[in-house]
């Protein structure tokens, strides 16, 4: 296909020149070659992927569905629609574009099924739903191109598993349809391309090198504290950056930080700049309102979490600030990429560490990005509960011929190694539950017919399935309702677990305001606005991202390479030197464990660098074992880098060595798993995804508590009567995936077997100060003034501990 003159003219009119890779997309399209396009955000890659489709549809007056675009975010489909409709209008093209998401009206859906648009923009779940209709084979038979956006973010997840199966079915309907992927820079593009490919559609990688590296600076003042997460000290500096730029995005890691920082910024916002807040817990209306303000350029700065990480093109952002540790290089790059969507200019970003270790991590990330390094992705084998959902979905649209369906499933990359034996078990579960001790035959979901094929049993099964499509299972949430004399207002939702710890009269920060808790009623948390400054913080739930293994290595490397310290702030260098003299710097090929007396107990501090959740688990397992050895452990605290355990007894060197062995880990883990609610919680997810039980049903809404309870009951009964059932097998398998951190711990223990260095000290080392004071900084509550005082007090204490060390060395 040659690029038509009208398209070149349009580019000229816009004063754009067509990038080489944009032209290449036409060659690939002509050759019917699938391609994974890897380019930094803002390079016009989305447009590039659509251009051949626009030309093909317009020039050939194509009738029917030509291109399906799949995005992980609903909002992104609307954004893309806007971005396509403009050029279509300007060039006067005969191309129809429509979105299809959970928000699409039933009238529109009906019409779309009868008269599909040329280009359909949708999400994995809505695509699945479309595939469940009986006319889906005809509906999709005409497609020539499939585009998957943000492929890097969706491929390694359960949603990705679902999508891979949907793609397999699309290819079965239209074998020649190209599969194009769009992705930000990834460590292993070939792997991602393989994920997207099918036996019939190999995928080539087209990598557009980022022309310019981002310019990242580490923002520090001498006030950088030893511990803490809120970066309170830097509010004035952050405000300065906001003033200096047209539009700034401030990324933080948890929702608690969003609320905290937003409020602190408004306290210093003397100029009354329009600073907004945005996170996933806000209501749809609120988010939409904010999004529109951003697009209109009416906002000076926005404080947000990962909710604004993906996709949407906010053209006018010129600065990005990351507050707190970045945790991963890919994530940081993604965030930085939100600024400056111009191909030929560097993105600008500032990193604001919240404590000393954060500063090390920020600096390590800056070095890594400079080297062009990036985190590796973790591609797992496809989840089996998703297969069950797919089988039922498939059966809703057409009858199942078992071997044929097996081939479709195996053509999806995550399921290429699925065995026939497992497949048949999953199919059997889809048919009648597959319970060996059960002989009822009136409760089948699928019914066999003479030809050894299976049909869906009833319209009820179809309805029930369609309401339950998807793999995202959210923690139970309550809607937050602000009560007002005139009109009540829903402002967002909040974790049920957090809500339950509130008592009437308690205050908390939400949507940037201090709210007073009234009561929980009908799945709503009722609250009223208050002028009080006193508030509790929203919970930390869902906000702790694991530290990437690669970045952890980089931090170790930075610590061990003094020549790299020159870009670190003075205070951090001093801190590193003190640690070096007084104790040891944790080396790259051994684990450092310090033991010292502190506050009348013995402290063990383990520098694992494996992330907070992994350290937390390690703390739990090790203190259990210490209990058995009568070492009288009292408590433990975990940070991303280290774990501190306090005990009444001093632990001798051999015992310490024996605590951190593979055997202990395995044994304690086994015991702990049996007692923990983790298996049951995982079973609940498996049960919902595989269709064993329903998620919340419109109209007869159960509370999540009830759902939890009933799947727990089923779990108990099934364990007693049929412990080998396929769903229990899936649960046991999934638990190990949930516990990725535990895998990391195991690898770490293996790696450092016999390489544990134990250092006996007379007092806390400089490196131990952050973890020792973490406990307190996490629990600071009170009004703004009190918060300041508390932080000051903790910091003074930390400084005192460091000064004591200074006296000695």
């Amino acid at each position, binding site marked *: 296909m040659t690029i038509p003159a009208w398209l070149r003219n349009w580019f000229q009119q816009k004063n754009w020149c067509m990038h080489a890779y944009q032209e290449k997309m036409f060659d690939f399209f002509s050759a019917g070659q699938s391609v994974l396009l890897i380019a930094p955000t803002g390079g016009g890659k989305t447009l590039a992927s659509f251009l051949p489709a626009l030309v093909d549809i317009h020039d050939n007056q194509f009738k029917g569905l030509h291109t399906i675009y799949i995005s992980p975010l609903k909002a992104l489909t609307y954004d893309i629609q806007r971005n396509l409709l403009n050029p279509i209008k300007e060039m006067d093209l005969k191309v129809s574009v429509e979105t299809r998401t959970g928000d699409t009206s039933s009238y529109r859906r009906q019409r779309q099924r009868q008269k599909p648009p040329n280009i359909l923009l949708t999400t994995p779940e809505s695509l699945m739903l479309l595939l469940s209709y009986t006319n889906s084979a005809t509906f999709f038979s005409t497609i020539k191109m499939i585009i998957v956006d943000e492929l890097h973010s969706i491929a390694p997840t359960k949603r990705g598993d679902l999508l891979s199966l949907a793609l397999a079915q699309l290819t079965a309907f239209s074998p020649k349809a190209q599969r194009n992927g769009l992705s930000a820079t990834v460590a292993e593009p070939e792997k991602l391309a393989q994920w997207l490919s099918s036996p019939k559609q190999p995928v080539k990688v087209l990598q557009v090198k980022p022309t310019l590296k981002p310019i990242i600076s580490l923002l520090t003042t001498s006030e950088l504290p030893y511990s803490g997460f809120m970066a309170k000290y830097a509010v004035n500096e952050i405000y300065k950056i906001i003033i200096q730029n047209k539009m700034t995005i401030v990324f933080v890691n948890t929702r608690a930080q969003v609320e905290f920082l937003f409020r602190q910024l408004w306290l210093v916002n003397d100029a009354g700049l329009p600073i907004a807040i945005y996170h996933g817990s806000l209501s749809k209306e609120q988010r939409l309102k904010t999004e529109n303000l951003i697009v209109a350029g009416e906002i000076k700065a926005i404080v947000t979490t990962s909710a604004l990480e993906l996709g949407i093109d906010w053209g006018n952002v010129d600065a990005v600030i990351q507050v707190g540790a970045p945790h991963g290089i890919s994530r940081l790059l993604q965030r930085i990429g939100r600024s400056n969507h111009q191909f030929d200019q560097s993105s600008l970003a500032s990193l604001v560490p919240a404590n000393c270790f954060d500063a090390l991590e920020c600096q390590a990330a800056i070095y890594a990005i400079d080297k062009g390094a990036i985190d590796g992705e973790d591609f797992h084998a496809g989840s089996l509960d998703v297969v069950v959902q797919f089988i039922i979905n498939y059966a809703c649209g057409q009858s199942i011929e078992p071997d044929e369906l097996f081939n479709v499933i195996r053509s999806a990359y995550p399921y290429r190694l699925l065995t026939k034996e497992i497949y048949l078990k999953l199919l059997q*579960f889809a048919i*009648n*539950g597959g*319970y060996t*001790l*059960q*002989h*009822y035959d*009136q*409760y089948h*979901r699928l019914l066999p017919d003479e030809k050894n094929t299976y049909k869906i049993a*009833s319209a*009820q*099964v179809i309805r*029930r399935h369609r309401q339950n499509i998807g793999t995202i299972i959210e923690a139970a949430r309550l809607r937050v309702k602000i009560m007002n004399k005139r009109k009540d207002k829903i402002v967002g939702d909040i974790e049920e677990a957090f809500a339950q710890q509130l008592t009437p009269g308690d205050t908390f920060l939400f949507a940037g305001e201090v709210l007073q808790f009234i*009561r*929980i*009623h009908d799945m709503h948390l009722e609250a009223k606005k208050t002028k009080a400054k006193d508030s509790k913080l929203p919970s930390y739930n869902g906000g702790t991202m694991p530290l990437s293994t690669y970045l952890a290595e980089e931090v170790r490397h930075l610590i061990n390479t003094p020549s790299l310290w020159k870009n670190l702030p003075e205070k951090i260098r001093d801190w590193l030197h003190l640690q070096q003299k007084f104790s040891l710097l944790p080396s790259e090929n051994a684990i450092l464990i310090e033991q010292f007396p502190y506050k009348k107990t013995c402290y063990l501090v383990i520098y694992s660098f494996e992330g907070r959740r992994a350290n937390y688990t390690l703390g739990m397992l090790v203190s259990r074992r210490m209990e058995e050895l009568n070492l009288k452990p009292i408590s433990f605290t975990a940070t991303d880098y280290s774990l501190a355990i306090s005990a009444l007894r001093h632990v001798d060197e051999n015992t310490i060595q024996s605590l951190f062995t593979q055997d202990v880990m395995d044994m304690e883990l086994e015991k702990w798993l049996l007692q923990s*609610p983790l298996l049951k919680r995982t079973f609940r997810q498996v049960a919902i995804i595989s*269709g*064993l*039980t*329903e998620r919340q049903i419109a109209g007869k809404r159960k509370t999540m*508590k*009830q759902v939890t*309870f*009933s799947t727990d*009951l*089923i779990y*108990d*009964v*099934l364990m*007693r*009567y*049929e412990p080998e*059932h396929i769903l229990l097998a899936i649960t046991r398998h999934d638990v190990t995936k949930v516990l990725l951190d535990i895998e990391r711990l195991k690898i770490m223990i293996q790696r450092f077997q016999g390489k544990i260095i134990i250092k006996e000290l007379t007092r806390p080392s400089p490196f131990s100060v952050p973890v020792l004071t973490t406990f307190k900084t996490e629990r600071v509550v009170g009004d703004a003034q009190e918060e300041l005082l508390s932080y000051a007090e903790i910091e003074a204490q930390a400084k005192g501990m460091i000064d004591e060390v200074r006296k000695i060395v």
Partner: protein
Amino acid sequence: MFANHRLIFDGNACIYWPTKEMVIVADLHLEKGSYLAEKGNPIPLYDTIDTLSRLEKIVDYYQPKTLVSLGDNIHDIDALNRIYPQHKLLLEKIANEVRQWVWVMGNHDKNVKPLNWASSMIFSASVNIDNILLTHDLVHESAFQIVGHYHPKTTVKNISGKCFLHNDSKIIMPSFGSYTGGFEIESTAFKKALNHELFNAFLLHNQKIWRVK
């Protein structure tokens, strides 16, 4: 002590009344599994056999003369048409091991036709024993009563489970059926249902029983 009688709360969700040689359970909800299965939930239908097996163990242990099941013994009116023949045999076996089995009717089974499976079965809306009324739901005018119906459940330090509720005049039993969920006693809805009356709670966990402060 309750109404001057010594009653034993058992961690297996039943009450044993020594002087009467009586075992009391509530809310068996037999065939709830198959009821849900009819609605399209492919859940394992092992709840009836599990419920009855546990009941059998209790009866074997206490060897009571009288077994009282306090209503909602079956989940719905159709349950007895769905029950497995083998499971029904177990039900009859239990019935034959006691001198009488009083089937109190609850809201789920009030219209069930008394089937004479075993001669020991007595169907009744309630029974009154030494001034204590045994019935499904609370009755306003009665002084002492033992009831089911509410499925109380509570949580102590992340341990969540069914519980007994008890005060000077009332005992509310935990539900016995394997697929019966519970209602959190701290929830407003639950408190409202009991007119905010105060109770002691006894949490069941791993077949043991714990007093809750």
